[in-house]
């Protein structure tokens, strides 16, 4: 079948390949193409199914609510027709385009009713808006502002001092702008984002595959920001006070006390 005559000799610049060499060559090329297909299939099947955060890229909407620029920029939007136990506000965290936080954009609007345009990012019950710069405009005040202190106080829960192990991520990518937006391959990007002002977040993965997301604050309640850059995307243990405001969890701790945890196979449980 495979009649390769040892006397056959391939010379690349001649137009035709000797028949035996040619026949073998077709087998080799077929083999390589099969290898190509196999590699593609194996590599695709071997990858983790990525969890879906959503980034409504290209879909710009308008939002109106009370802007709290500090400690983490967030827009409080009244939930229509709320009764029962749900918080009376939805919280939309605000970031800027690219790897930037929105502190500079929203600073002057602190504690004011505003209207703004932006694109939604959401995952695991947390929602974020990538705001269109210069789209923020102040609106006439309404009663929310006056009621806020009492509402916040009513919705605050203190969960006490806890020791948690998890991963520090940048909230914007994690929530959906990138997929994957966590773990080692994403480390540099998370560093860049947090350095650019995107608030860092702590992801605690539980045995059952569920996750708890906490915003990282220092003991005084300010965002920890750049202080965590060196510990991003690694297993980290944090001892701190957990507070809840509405649906959101905050972990208050001095970033100097964050510790690297031993490498645990925590990324497996998804």
């Amino acid at each position, binding site marked *: 079948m495979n009649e390769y005559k040892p006397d056959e000799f391939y010379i*690349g610049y001649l137009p035709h390949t000797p028949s035996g060499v040619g026949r073998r*060559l077709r087998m080799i090329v077929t083999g390589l193409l099969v290898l190509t297909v196999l590699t593609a299939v194996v590599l695709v099947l*071997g*990858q983790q199914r990525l969890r*879906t955060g959503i980034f409504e890229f290209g879909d710009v909407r308008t939002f109106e609510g009370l802007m709290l620029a500090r400690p983490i920029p967030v827009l409080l939007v009244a939930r229509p027709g709320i009764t029962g136990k749900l918080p009376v506000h939805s919280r939309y965290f605000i970031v800027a385009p690219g790897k*930037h936080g929105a502190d500079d954009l929203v600073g002057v609007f602190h504690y004011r009713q505003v209207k703004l345009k932006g694109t939604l990012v959401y995952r695991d019950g947390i929602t974020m808006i990538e705001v269109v710069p210069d789209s923020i405009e102040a609106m006439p005040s309404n009663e929310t502002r006056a009621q806020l202190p009492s509402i916040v106080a009513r919705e605050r829960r203190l969960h006490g001092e806890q020791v948690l192990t998890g991963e520090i991520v940048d909230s914007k990518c994690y929530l959906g702008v990138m997929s994957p937006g966590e773990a080692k391959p994403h480390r540099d*990007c998370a*560093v*860049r984002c947090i*350095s650019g002002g995107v608030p860092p977040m702590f992801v605690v993965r539980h045995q059952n595959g569920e996750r708890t997301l906490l915003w990282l604050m220092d003991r005084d309640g300010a965002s920890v920001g750049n202080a965590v850059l060196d510990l991003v995307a690694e297993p980290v243990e944090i001892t701190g006070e957990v507070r809840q405001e509405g649906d959101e969890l905050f972990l208050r701790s001095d970033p100097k006390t964050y510790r690297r945890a031993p490498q645990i196979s925590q990324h497996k449980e998804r």
Partner: protein
Amino acid sequence: MSLTYGAIGWNRQKKIYDLVLACGIVLYLSLFIGLGAWLNPGATVETLLIRGFGTCALLLLHIVLIIGPLCRIDARFLPLLYNRRHLGVTTFIMGLAHAGLAIFQFHALGDLNPFVSLLVSNTRFFSLPDFPFQQLGFGALVILFLMASTSHDFWLANLSAPVWKRLHMSVYAAYALLIAHVTLGVLQAETNPLLAAALGAGLASVISLHLVSGSREVRADSHSSLSSFDGAGEFVDVCSVDEIAEKRARIVTLAGERVAVFKYDGKISVLSNVCQHQNGPLGEGRIVDGCVTCPWHGFQYLPDSGASPPPFIERVPTFRVKVDGGRVLVNPRPLPPGTRVEPARIDANASG
């Protein structure tokens, strides 16, 4: 080899080669990205493209690396070697697409220049699991760039063959960097053993094929090393005339290097075995149109003088040879490249 340089010397074989290559890449990328998007709807397009291009480059690099030893093991792989440089340049282009997208995705639009960011974002040089793997990829990309950008024959001539070859040997450094890039990078998060196994299989095939072909060479050399001088103490008995096929050669080691003993048209001529182009084994070539033709890229030499026919200028050392009683006797002192030596006639000395 040529008189003046052209851009790309496409000929029919190279066109077929490149067409197959292009089809292979389209096949791989469309499968990887298509299947990936279908099975993994959570992945963004950027992720699929970055991963598609990166793995495609690494797959191509594996093929580039195993072609050499495969050709040493079985001459029928030689057609893959002929146009390997296009494979190499394509590998670089795929790597560049991967790296460009990765730098944009992970470093651009931030508070630092993306290239500065690439250098400073991760400084955990003393931790394996957290090692700055992207910088390893960058190192590999620089090497692949230097190789791709110097792949034209102009560079072989002007960097000079020794420098050019050393530069192109650094493909192994690039390969090592990439293995580390992947192991310390994506495999730290993607823990499916299938992926580690795929990379391991690639690494194992590259290493084992090199070991097998290398040990064959060593064995062949030890069988063909000669020391027995004839009576006059000047000529060495290398083999019998009948051991050599017509228009083919037998390779033996003389004076510290291999020589090719060619038999053609009732004559014997002996040349240094090392092709001036890229050290291809002339003795594994054959006589075509009266010229010794290198099996790798087809450079040609006149068997009696070791000189390429005009207008080409390559020359290899030659050896004095005689035939006595059916035995081929070679003087082990190499003559300056291109020195004409009267071929030994077989019939005049035929033993029987």
